């Protein structure tokens, strides 16, 4: 009964993407071999952060693409199984569905953020590239953003702006208010020291706090943004 179903094939799928992960690990730094389970954990963290962050965060598409390939591979393996009602199949399916949700929702959240303020996000993306920081958008997202920006500009142009005097032909920008937002976060690594917070009574003063490991805070987003990018804290 089990011959049509190959757990080995599943393992292969897992280990091949494990290799893929390894390559990427090498590219980045001397990270150790990364297991599919670890990739999944990272994805979960990225999704949680993205969902809770008031602005778009640097993309995690290396991880995402490993998982997307993994889902493809598993889908193929499962499609080959004859008896679809085997318990094993259901269990693998259910797990795939969870991972699929995670990756899809991650992409969706980011696309919606891009649509919400496409011009500003593209500017920020380019600025980061100039500064040598990790890119904000993935290749795929960037292509999407460009197309979207064009479509939006055309819509506005053909509906209103094209009929207006040149000085009022500008495309409206929604405000960016990530700088004013607060977030809930948990400290992951050892204490995060020297976080400068604004002092609401004096615009020139700062209050310096340090955040203990594992502690949870309600805190302005701007000052901890870098710590988030460096995985020292996570958003809730």
């Amino acid at each position, binding site marked *: 009964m089990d011959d049509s179903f190959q757990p080995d094939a599943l393992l292969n799928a897992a280990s091949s993407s494990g290799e893929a992960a390894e390559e990427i690990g090498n590219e980045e730094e001397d990270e150790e071999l990364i297991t599919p389970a670890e990739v999944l954990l990272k994805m979960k963290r990225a999704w949680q952060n993205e969902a809770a962050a008031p602005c778009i965060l640097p993309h995690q598409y290396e991880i995402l693409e490993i998982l997307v390939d993994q889902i493809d591979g598993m889908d193929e393996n499962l499609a080959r199984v004859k008896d679809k009602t085997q318990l094993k199949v259901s*269990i693998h399916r259910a797990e795939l569905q969870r991972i699929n949700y995670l990756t899809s929702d991650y992409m969706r959240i980011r696309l919606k953020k891009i649509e919400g303020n496409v011009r500003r996000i593209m500017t920020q993306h380019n600025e980061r590239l100039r500064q040598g920081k990790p890119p904000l958008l993935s290749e795929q997202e960037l292509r999407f953003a460009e197309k979207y920006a064009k479509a939006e500009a055309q819509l506005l142009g053909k509906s209103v702006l094209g009929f207006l005097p040149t000085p009022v032909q500008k495309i409206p920008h929604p405000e960016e*208010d990530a700088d004013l*937002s*607060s977030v809930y976060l948990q400290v992951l690594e050892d204490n995060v020291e020297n976080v400068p917070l*604004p002092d609401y009574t004096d615009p020139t003063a700062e209050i310096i706090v340090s955040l203990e490991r594992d502690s949870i805070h309600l805190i302005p987003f701007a000052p901890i943004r870098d710590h988030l990018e460096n995985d020292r804290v996570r958003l809730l």
Partner: protein
Amino acid sequence: MDAEKCEFLAGDESIEIIPKLNADEIHLISADVGPFEAGVGTRVPLWLALLLRKKHYCTIVTPNWLSPDELRRYLVAETENAGLTELPNYFFEIAHILVREAHEDLLESDLVKTLVQDLWDRREAKLRTSIVKFLSQKNVSHARLDYVQPTEVVAARPTLAACKQIARLVANIHDSQQSQT
């Protein structure tokens, strides 16, 4: 984040089940589970426990912390502590999921339901007062909220909008002050 997403995350927490079937180890992406031996307890992620249970392949063992005795202890601690008490990860999510989908497997599920609700109420009251206090402080934009549970963060999300408004207000005042000087 919303309550549903919190429950989704709680699905990865591990829980003990008593299988009703025998089955080999299964290699999942997230972990290996099994082998399963009928009648012998083993730990699996909650989502898998629910799936097996739905198929009548296992019963879920009530986590120790969800027993009436433990819950009463938490309640006492919650009363004595000024801050929030530490609870197991995804406490409320798991409790809600089990009461909703597996209440036949819980010991004294009615009582458990009431006690969990009591605990929630008590913590919510605390959170509310501390958030009011936090919002009314003058210079500080930061509050420490250790041991807060994911669902509680979701419930307290409107606070973020309030924080933003305050920040904007402050920024505006500062702007106008600067332009005056």
